[in-house]
């Protein structure tokens, strides 16, 4: 018994000594939640970056916390916030911004931007990415990583059916025309190669947004409280997508998995596909044939979706921790680091000056495909982002799935979705 109490005393004494030591050096300690949504050694890349940051800023210590997928990250961060222990910095979906604002969980960056250098840093992001970071004239997050969708085609298949292998389809009509030629039906009616495949298993609203942008429409406005799911532009876009499967019969009917879509492409079961820019390296490594990659085909105009993570600074932590968090975010998204992150992970660097760094230039010279997402940036539209975003995106995803599985007509599915969205967003309208 005696030895036990003395052990506790000893432990208390050493804790006291440790904290005294800490008080002397007093580095500000912040924690950094980050998700991993892609393959590759993200954890070691993050740790390497943090080691270099700490070397440059000895008075700040960053504790990286790998927090699972994007949905798990926001779950963990919000739970921690409610328990009074939020992380100082977290990377979460840009579309989670309204949820985080509604929970009062994050602080705006504007209070931390003081010097001209800070302002130049904040102005350096591509404006289209900033739309998903701004609300009510304030900047609530900064783009940390971004992706888009690109168009890939199998050059061998093009040659086989007499198409120019160097030229992908440039508009909606050409996609149908090429896909009809490329679709291969066996004598028994079984299709051994589809002309075109667009994934639809998850966040399919994202692909619909690309079509809607090309059709010169909008899926939602920028207040986060109004969607336009039943507008003619959106209905036409979904109709076009559904027609690929049921009218032109050039796409596999039903829901197409994100994961199997590139595989179908490698196996020659799909001659043209749309998939994320994050798949560039995957396709480059695994396609057993020469392939082409280009920006998405146009209709009334060019258009493309974006998505990805923002870095957010949390409410409910002390001022000096928030300042330290700001320094860290700023450093992490400055040109050199943004370029490095982009090269190592395949995400699109969210600032023009990152594309001008030597490292990025060398990378693009070696792998020209990496330039295609950059070429698409002028046509990108902000991602669907509303209050109660998870719920709204599920509503539109369900409508798309119902249409692609021929359970509902696109017009009907979208008007149902709009009614449901109106019901959910009613509370947020003034």
């Amino acid at each position, binding site marked *: 018994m005696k030895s036990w109490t003395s052990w506790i005393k000893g432990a208390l004494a050493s804790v006291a000594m440790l904290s005294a030591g800490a008080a002397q050096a007093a580095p500000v300690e912040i924690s950094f939640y980050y998700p991993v949504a892609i393959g590759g050694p993200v954890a070691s890349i993050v740790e390497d970056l943090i080691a270099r940051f700490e070397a440059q800023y000895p008075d700040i210590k960053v504790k990286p916390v790998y927090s699972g997928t994007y*949905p798990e990250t926001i*779950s963990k961060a*919000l739970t921690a916030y409610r328990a009074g222990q939020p992380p100082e910095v977290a990377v979460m979906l840009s579309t989670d911004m309204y*949820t985080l*604002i*509604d*929970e*009062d*969980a994050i602080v705006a960056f504007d209070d931390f931007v003081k010097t001209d250098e800070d302002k130049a840093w904040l102005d350096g992001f591509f404006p289209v990415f900033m739309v998903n970071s701004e609300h009510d004239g304030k900047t609530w997050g900064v783009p940390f990583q971004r992706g888009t969708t690109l168009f890939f085609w199998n050059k061998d298949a093009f040659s086989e059916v007499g198409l120019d292998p160097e030229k992908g389809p440039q508009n909606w009509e050409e996609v149908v025309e090429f896909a009809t030629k490329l679709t291969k039906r066996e004598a*028994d*009616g*079984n*299709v051994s190669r589809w002309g075109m495949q667009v994934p639809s*298993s*998850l966040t399919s609203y994202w692909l619909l947004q690309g079509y809607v942008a090309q059709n010169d429409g909008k899926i939602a406005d920028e207040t986060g409280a109004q969607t336009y799911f039943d507008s003619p532009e959106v209905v036409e876009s979904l109709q076009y997508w559904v027609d690929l499967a049921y009218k032109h019969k050039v796409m*596999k*009917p*039903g*829901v*197409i*998995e994100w994961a*199997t879509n590139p595989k*179908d492409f490698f*196996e020659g*079961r799909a001659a043209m596909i749309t998939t994320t820019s994050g798949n560039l390296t995957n396709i480059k490594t695994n396609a057993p044939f020469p392939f082409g990659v280009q920006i998405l085909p146009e209709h009334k105009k060019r258009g493309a979706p974006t998505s990805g993570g923002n870095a957010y600074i949390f409410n409910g932590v002390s001022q000096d921790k928030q300042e330290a968090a700001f320094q860290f975010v700023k450093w992490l998204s400055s040109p050199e680091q943004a370029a490095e992150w982009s090269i190592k992970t395949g995400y699109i660097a969210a600032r023009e000056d990152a594309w001008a760094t030597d490292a990025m230039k060398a990378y693009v010279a070696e792998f020209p495909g990496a330039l295609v997402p950059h070429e698409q940036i002028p046509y990108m539209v902000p991602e669907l982002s509303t209050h*109660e975003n*998870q*719920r709204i995106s*599920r509503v539109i*995803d*369900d*409508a798309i*799935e*119902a249409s*692609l*599985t021929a*359970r509902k007509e696109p017009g009907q599915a979208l008007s149902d979705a709009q009614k449901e969205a109106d019901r959910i967003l009613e509370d947020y309208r003034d």
Partner: protein
Amino acid sequence: MKKTNNMVAPWLLLLPATVLLAAFTHIPAVMTFINSFYRTPRGNRPARFVGLDQYSNMLSDPVFMAALKNNAIYALGTVPAAIALSMLMAVIVNSAIRGRALLRMSFFLPTVLPMIAVANIWLFFYTPGYGLIDQFLGLFGFHERNWLGDPDTVLGSLMVLAIWKEAGFFMIFYLAALQQISPTLSEAAALEGASRWYFFRRVTFPLLMPTTLFVMINAIINSFRLIDHVIVMTRGGPDNASTLLLYYVYNVAFRFWDAAYASALTVVLLAALALLAFVQFGVLDRKVHYK
């Protein structure tokens, strides 16, 4: 003095279990019930008492209705099939055949594997075109099918997986019950000239009824409780064709952050399960014992 000591000791012994049960079971259950009468607080909007609004919202919620229907089909499909299959497997591995140990192990194997791993394996089985099932069916001239991407086949596909996963576990209970049955019964029946099917139908099956009741309750609870494969394989899609109740509760609570509505859904789910268990234990229990 002595008397109080007598009272204190048992309470102290119960304390750890009571604290744990209260903290992680009873208090959350009561809180869930209370929360279901409020609206979810958001950062700038406090919780507000709304009475039965959450419950009436449910009736006009198409996703809830779809989940309810799916779960009913799922339970009606998986429970009898899992029971029949596990009984059959138990009878097979209870008989004196060669390779019995190997057979028992292979029947039990799906139970040992984690659901997440199993779901990922079956995800490959169901892959359109080059998944195991399509490749096998292709040998007989069937066309490729999008098993998990088609609302007509997705729920059935999940049910097959669930039956396969569950049956091995229930087989253990049947096997134990079969070994309790005295061999004199089968000897007597053989002397009387009863066929094996007649013996199974009139002797073995009735004697297994208490086990069947136990297995049935567990199977029904599992059909509402196990949703790992839904998360891994379909996320409830396409168009909610494979959304089960608990998966919907999970979505509402941890993706939509609507804790109050999720509480109301949980209360309904618990009430339904309690009712089922009550019917089974209260009504059937009296009838299952062979006298």
